[in-house]
């Protein structure tokens, strides 16, 4: 292993390990405070997630949603943009996918219907993200605040559309789609019976591959990363940073929007108010832990999905909210550990060199 690779690996993995250790200690304290023993609870958490097919299928389902929002935020961060709007972009995407799925005739060929729904989801998410993109590049409004504020506006608007116009009686969801179904994994592997995991996971993996190629092997991706690392230098070398930001933000919103298909096309087959609550915010954590690398994001999505599903698995003994607490602790710990580890490693290397 070359030294450079080892150093990079250390820098990427150490903070995550530190954060997990801190989370485990905090988890111990919470479990003990609830009068339970940590060991058996952790074992139950693992058995309920990776220990049986149903639990694993649920983890895969939750990881799929988080992979989309995580990749959305990662591509923004690579361009130097912080998209906090994935929360509403995924909702808008899911909504658009449902509308197209309801509108299409049931006889539409499956693959075409799915592609049209995905296109609609991406267009809706990208459309929502275009607002902060324009406000940033044309008016200089900071995207963090605009995307946060826009979350509330878009979610209130969707809530109005559902409650005032589109809901089924006694519910907060639309009618079921007639075309655009993505089959569940149980249709191929019966062991997954009952689990929500569906072919959206394939879309997520393909998106990760495409995103990796775009970021690291294409000219556009090179410009995007250059704009993120050193906007002034990028501008000086002939890259239009504003164009890159527009593209990156809209792409980010589109990826988040496509995340909506996991629930709408693959699981419940309708749009429901609040179906992806929290996915946008957790996506920030996923991007952070995945170091803004598409494949890192996939791994991080599995980690956070395991925590979410694990919370449900231990709910009879410890309130499931322990998972939310631990996820938040992981985020805080890792975002504190990343700069610290980098500094310490740098100091260590200098000492070796001296």
């Amino acid at each position: 292993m070359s030294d450079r690779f080892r150093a990079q690996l250390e820098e990427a993995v150490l903070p995550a390990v530190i954060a997990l250790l801190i989370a485990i200690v905090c988890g111990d304290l919470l479990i003990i405070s609830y009068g339970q023993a940590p060991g058996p609870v952790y074992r139950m958490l693992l058995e309920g997630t990776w220990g049986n097919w149903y639990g694993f299928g649920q983890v895969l389902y939750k990881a799929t949603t988080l992979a989309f929002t995580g990749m959305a935020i990662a591509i923004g961060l690579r361009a130097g943009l912080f998209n906090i709007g994935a929360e509403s972009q995924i909702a808008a995407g899911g909504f658009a996918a449902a509308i197209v799925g309801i509108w299409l005739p049931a006889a539409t060929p499956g693959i075409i219907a799915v592609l049209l729904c995905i296109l609609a989801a991406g267009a809706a998410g990208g459309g929502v993200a275009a607002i902060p993109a324009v406000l940033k590049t044309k008016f200089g409004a900071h995207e963090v605040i605009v995307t946060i504020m826009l979350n509330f506006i878009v979610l209130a608007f969707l809530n109005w559309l559902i409650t005032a116009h589109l809901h089924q009686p006694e519910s907060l969801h639309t009618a079921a789609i007639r075309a655009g179904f993505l089959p569940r994994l149980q249709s191929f592997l019966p062991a997954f019976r009952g689990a929500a995991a569906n072919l959206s996971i394939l879309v997520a993996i393909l998106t990760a591959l495409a995103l990796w190629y775009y970021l690291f092997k294409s000219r556009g991706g090179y410009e995007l990363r250059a704009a993120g690392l050193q906007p002034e230098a990028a501008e000086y070398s002939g890259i239009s940073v504003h164009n890159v930001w527009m593209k990156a933000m809209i792409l980010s919103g589109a990826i988040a929007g496509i995340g909506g298909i996991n629930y709408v096309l693959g699981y419940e087959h309708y749009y429901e108010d609040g179906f992806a609550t929290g996915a946008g915010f957790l996506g920030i954590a996923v991007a952070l832990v995945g170091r803004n690398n598409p494949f890192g994001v996939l791994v991080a999505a599995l980690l956070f999905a395991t925590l979410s599903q694990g919370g449900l698995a231990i709910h009879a003994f410890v309130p499931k909210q322990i998972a939310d607490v631990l996820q938040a602790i992981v985020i805080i710990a890792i975002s504190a550990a990343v700069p610290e580890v980098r500094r310490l490693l740098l100091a260590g290397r200098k000492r070796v060199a001296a």
Partner: protein
Amino acid sequence: MSIGLLITQVLRISVPYLFAASGGVVAERSGIISLTLEGFMLTGAFTATLGAYYTGNPWMGVLFGIAGGMVMALIHAVATIRYRADQVVVGIAINLLALGATRFFLKLAFQSSSNSPRIKGLGGENSVTGLDNPLVWLGLLSVPFVWFILYRTKFGLRVRAVGEHPEAAASLGIPVQRVQYVSVLISGILAGLGGTYLSISQHAFTDNLTAGRGFIAISAVIFGRWEPFKAALACLLFAAAETLQIQLQGSHVIAGQFVEMIPYALTIIALAGLVGRAVAPAALGKASQ
């Protein structure tokens, strides 16, 4: 409904905003982003309920509420100031932490996933206006208090210097990080009080009691151009919109969701500079070296 009662309703609704926005002004002027207000408030609301319930004294609840806000503020400060973690990321995590932790401990303390038992309030039980609750007046006072700190004390001068130009401030011998620590703690205290008002005035803690109020407060800070009195005016404006929404409920004049959007839409418009530009403190969000 008389105009007097309407005004008192606006005042009551604005109290948590006034507390939290005043705190947000201090923290942001020191250069630390206050996306944490929601989490500080929610934690304060919950710990206030714990204090009031277990001691039977609502004033102990107030102390506990302050402490709860401070603990969360301390976590935020250590992560972002000592370890230079990203302020936006940690801010959002603080909100997730507050939501998860209050739910967890609501279960632990009161075996409920929805609400705490009834706690004693401050002020008379039969007041129509709710204005006999001293926290209402404390909330109003928090605005001139923060203005006085920022513009009439040496500490305030330092806060503004640190938020605009930390390197210059450091070269003048100002302890940049200590000033930021104190500023974030002040925001924790004030937002904690805002949460305390919510739980004490409704005599109980309920799940996700703050329901986005911290984000309305941060909107008020931005819409008010990071000035205490302007932010307070924004709080009153947003509270008036909310009062309107409550009064219009059931009538079909305008859907409540559109009134809900007002604070956020105004903030975006202000940030885009469409009606006079909102310019943030120069070093806001940048970790000091």
